[in-house]
Each structure stands twice: as structure tokens, then as C-alpha cells.
């Protein structure tokens, strides 16, 4: 792994005030993605996975305080709180896909016009049409059929491909895909993910695949990070994590994936996500953990290297018996 990272997020911390309490909704989040890699970011809703990726491109909601961390992309480093700087990456190699592609496309423009308007940012006007036709083709869409339609006239799967054509129009080297297939049926989901994998190979495109569905990540990613309540609980190469899942949360997740082909959500675990008060220091999983013991409440466990990857749980401390 001498290859330097394409994208690196270090120690991102995001806070907000809710119900009169300051809550740390993301804490010490780090992530590193190499060229052409598909990296999985897994967690249930509210775990901070989307928020931290949005923050990494300067698009976090204004009500969120980004109190620490920095992000580097292709050699340019910005403080995580520098929204303007981070947003400049968006026209220079980082792009996004959203879960709700129909809502993400502008309702006021035809699909063809949306792709062309992104292209117009970096190409002379005369070549935009030709390039748009090519992008439609790359994304498996028929330009003649769809370019004059509005987003409300096409299917969800088509909309996600149009969104992809828009994203590709920025010539990205990193695509942050926030549950891009959740709104689609299983067949369309597979097609789309297979297509994304092919893009990665052909265009040297790296993808951060945000998912609440561990089986998707297992199938397509080379490495993964599992977030719980705004903290990394386990991360490492996919093979190592799946061969020897350490954290009780990860084990719960993997146990909940009986068959990789049947997508499962993270619901089967008991209990809800931790409320996030930043003045309470303990293992944030303790109220759901079958192995919880008094020591778990003593402080936030450190992230420890074990079995070829990293885990945040006191069961794996050096002095643990």
C-alpha cells in the first residue's frame, strides 16, 4: 500500500446543539481511499455516515459546527471547517450521488439539459451536446429517448443513471455515493452497482459507497469502515473484517446477514442509536451490547489494531483477560 491516498479525511468532528445539549454527532472520523478503490462506509441511519461525507465536500448543513479535522483530496488539504475550500473540490474531481435521484435532479430542466449544463462548466458550448450524448451512452441511457424528458417522466433507475451522467460530466476521480440504490428494486440495484464497478475499473474512479446494508458492501468493496453513533467501531480490509469480526456491533451485523444475496438492513439489533450528548464519555454501544461490563462506562474505548484491522472495544485491550 505504498500508493498515496486519493482522498483522506482525518479526525473529523461535527457538533450541533439539540434540545439544549451540545451533541457530538461525529467524532474523530477518519477515512482514506486509494485511486480506483470502492470503499464501504456502513452504519444505521443517524450514525453520521452521510453527514461526515457531506461535510467532507463542504455541503454540511449550516446548523452543524465542524469543530475539528481536515480533508485532503488529490494533494490539496483543507480544514474540515473550510466549506468554501472543500466545495472547490466538487468541480475538481469529487462528485456525489444521492439516494433520491429523482429529487436530486432539477425538476425544471430536461435530463439532457441538466447534463449539458454541468458540461458547460468546463467545455465550450459547441461540444456539450456531443459529450452529453456520449455520457448518456456510457450510463446505459438512450439520449434520443430521454434527453427531452423531465425527471418526473422517467423511472427511478433512469433518474439515478441521469444523475450519474451529471456526476461523470465533472470528470470525477472520486464519487461519493450515498445509498444510491436504496430507492430502487433489487434488479435495478444490481445493474447499477455492477455498472459502477465497471466505471471504477475503466475510469480509475474511486467510490465511497455509503450503505446501511452490509451485504452490498461485502460484495463490492475492498475495505470498509463501520460507524456507530458517530464513532468508528471497526475498520479494515473487507476480507479481514469478515474473516474475524471483532466488535459486538459488527458481529451483530454479520450475524444479521444470513445470505449475502438477500439484502438485510441493520434493524435486527436491539436498542436505538445513542443520543449523542458530548458530555457523557463511555462506550456508546454499551446500552445495546451483550458483553457490556462496568469498565465499558469508564470512558470512550480507544481504536485498537487487532487481527489485521482496527476495533473500538475494551474486550480487545492488551490487559483484557
Amino acid at each position, binding site marked *: 500500500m505504498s500508493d498515496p491516498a486519493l482522498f483522506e479525511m482525518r479526525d473529523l468532528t461535527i457538533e450541533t446543539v439539540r434540545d439544549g445539549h451540545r451533541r457530538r454527532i461525529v467524532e474523530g472520523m477518519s477515512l482514506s481511499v486509494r485511486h480506483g478503490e470502492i470503499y464501504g462506509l456502513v452504519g444505521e441511519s443517524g450514525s453520521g455516515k452521510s453527514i461526515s461525507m457531506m461535510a467532507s465536500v463542504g455541503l454540511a448543513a449550516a446548523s452543524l459546527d465542524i469543530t475539528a479535522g481536515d480533508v485532503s483530496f488529490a494533494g490539496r488539504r483543507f480544514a474540515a471547517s473550510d466549506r468554501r475550500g472543500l466545495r472547490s473540490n466538487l468541480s475538481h474531481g469529487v462528485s456525489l450521488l444521492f439516494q433520491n435521484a429523482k429529487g436530486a435532479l432539477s425538476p425544471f430542466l430536461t435530463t439532457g439539459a441538466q447534463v449539458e449544463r454541468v458540461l458547460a462548466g468546463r467545455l465550450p458550448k459547441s461540444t456539450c451536446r456531443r459529450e452529453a450524448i456520449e455520457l448518456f451512452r456510457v450510463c446505459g441511457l438512450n439520449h434520443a429517448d430521454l434527453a427531452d424528458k423531465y425527471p418526473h417522466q422517467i423511472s427511478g433507475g433512469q433518474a439515478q443513471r441521469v444523475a450519474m451522467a*451529471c456526476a461523470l460530466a465533472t470528470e470525477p476521480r472520486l464519487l461519493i455515493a450515498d445509498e444510491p440504490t436504496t430507492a430502487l428494486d433489487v434488479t435495478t440495484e444490481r445493474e447499477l452497482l455492477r455498472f459502477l464497478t465497471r466505471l471504477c475499473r475503466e475510469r480509475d474512479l474511486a467510490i465511497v459507497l455509503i450503505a446501511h446494508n452490509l451485504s452490498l458492501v461485502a460484495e463490492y468493496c475492498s475495505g470498509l469502515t463501520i460507524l456507530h453513533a458517530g464513532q468508528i467501531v471497526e475498520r479494515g480490509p473487507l476480507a479481514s473484517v469478515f474473516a474475524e469480526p471483532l466488535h459486538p456491533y459488527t458481529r451483530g451485523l454479520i450475524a444479521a446477514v444470513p445470505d449475502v444475496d438477500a439484502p438485510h438492513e441493520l434493524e435486527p439489533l436491539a436498542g436505538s442509536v445513542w443520543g449523542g450528548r458530548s458530555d457523557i464519555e463511555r462506550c456508546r454501544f454499551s446500552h445495546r451490547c451483550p458483553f457490556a461490563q462496568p469498565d465499558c462506562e469508564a470512558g470512550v474505548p480507544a481504536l485498537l489494531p487487532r487481527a489485521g484491522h482496527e476495533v473500538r472495544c475494551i474486550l480487545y485491550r492488551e490487559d483484557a483477560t
Partner: protein
Amino acid sequence: MRPMRIPPVLSYVLRRVAISIVVLIGISAVAFSMAYLLPSDPVTSRYPDISNEQRAEMRRQMGLDQPLIVQYARYMESVFRGEFGRSLGTGNSVGEDLARRIPATLELAVYGILLGTALAIPLGMFAAIRRGRPTDHVLRLVNIAIQSVPAFWLGVVLIFVVFYQLRWAPTPVGRLSPLYSPPPFFTGFYTLDGLLSGKFDVALAAGRQLILPVLVLGLGVVSPLARITRAAMGESLGEDYVTFGRALGLRERQVVLGDAFRGALIPIVTTFGFVVGNVLAGAAIVETVFSWPGIGRYAVTAITTSDMAPVSTCILLVASGVALTNLLVDLSYALIDPRIRHGYGK
């Protein structure tokens, strides 16, 4: 051979126009009865010192002794002839009177609405973008201040300060100071007609007369429009398509003006429809304060002298204006949002 198909938008317009005509006839009946029921008597208010026999004779001559239904029928007949009855005050047909006064009111209203909109929309947008920050709070205070100033008071204060004290504005004597003669008629707007006929001094003089009344009328528009712009923009700025537009590296101007503003436009245009109605009502006050020879002042004079035909006709005119505005507002929805446009076909 395919049967001829009426485009869905056109059939929608025709349907709306037909409904509007029925509604307007209803309004004319109500307006006429209300004018008839006014407590004062048109003859007494004009000739207070005549004998009862003379009064009865005058009423008979004017047709006032006829039952209400007959008077209304006569009025409607005159409406369809384009005369709209006869004004007891001016002696002309109401149609003639209005033809002379409508351009005066329109010039005032159009400039007032343009000014108010040009102020309100940027203010509202700016507040939405700065939501919750100090700029937003300051703008909200300004808005409340504007809203709480009544038009007649503002008009009188402006005349006092800007005309009497500062001498910046010309004497409020209506559309044009008596030193100038009106320009030839092209549009009915003295400012435009002055420019079109090359009489720039007349255009300038007419423009100077317009400043204060347009300001008063325009400020009345600012508050509701700015408020709805802030609310609607605040919502549309949070839409996924705005975030995605930003994520695609589109310029902020493209995202905010192109997508977010367009997303906010339907409630703004709806409010704009209400506002036009308010302006037509507000014109009565502003025209009275500034001696503006428009339909507002004409209507006020007619009401105070129980001049029935002008009162009914002015009500009918304002109602038609509001109906037309609402139709245009509805049609603009289809232009703004393709989802609504495609809905017409279904």
C-alpha cells in the same frame, strides 16, 4: 382524418374565461344593488334645496323611480353597449370617463408593483440565504416597519417632508404639472408617451409627479412579497436538487437563481396575485392623497355622491382585473413547473 383537438391549455383558458364571465355578472348584480342601497340619495346630495315635487320629478327623469330590477336591466344593457351607464357627476358615459382614467391608474399601479417587486424579491431572497443570521433579523424588522405604516399616512408625511420641507418633489397636482401639456397618446403612460414622442421634458415631468405616489403604492407591496419569498426560498434552498446542483460544482448563482428561485416561484406568484388586488384597492387612497386623476379617486367621488353607475362599474372593473390576474397567475404555474404543464394533458 383525425378530429381537431383543442390544446389542453387553451381549453383550460376558455373554461376559466367562461366561469369568470358568470362570476363577473354575479358581481355586477351585487355591486349594483349595493350602490342602490347606499343610504344617501343621488338627487338630494346634488340639489339639497329643492322641493319634494322637484325631487320626485328629477328622480323620474333619472329613472330612479323604477324598481331595482328595471334599473339593473337598463344598466346591464348599457354595459353591453360599452357605455356602462351614465355618471351623474360628470354627465359622461362611465365608459368614456374610465377610458380617460384607466391609463392614469395603470401607470401608477404598474410602476408601483414593479418597484415593490424589485425591492421585495431580492430582500426576501437575501433573508432566506442568510436565514437565522443578523442580516435576516434586520431585514425582518425593516419588513415589519414597512408593513405597519398605513399608505395614507405615509403619503401625507412624504408630501409634507419631500415637497413642503425639502422641495425635492413637485407639487402633488396629479399626473402632470399644468406647465406641460400631455404627450400624444400611444400607451396612455405619460412617461412612455413622452419618450416615444420625443418630448423628454414632459416624460421627465411626468416621472417626477410619479415618484411619491409610486413609492407609497410600491412599499405596500414589499412586505407580503418579501415574506413569502423568504419562506419559499428557505424551503427550496433545502431541496435535494439544490444540494445536488452544488455537488455538481454548478455556480452558486445558477443554483440559487436557476433552481431554488424557480422552485420558490409558485407561492411567490400566487402572493403576487393577491398583491395586485391590494394595489388596486390601495390606489383609491393614494390617488386621493396625491390628487391623481385615476379610477380610484373617481370611485371615491362616486361613492360620496351616490353616483350609482360609476360605483358599480368601478367594482366590476376591479373584479375583472383581479379575475384576469388570477387567470394569468394560474397559467404562469404551467410555465414555471413542467410537472404542472404536463398535468394539463391529464
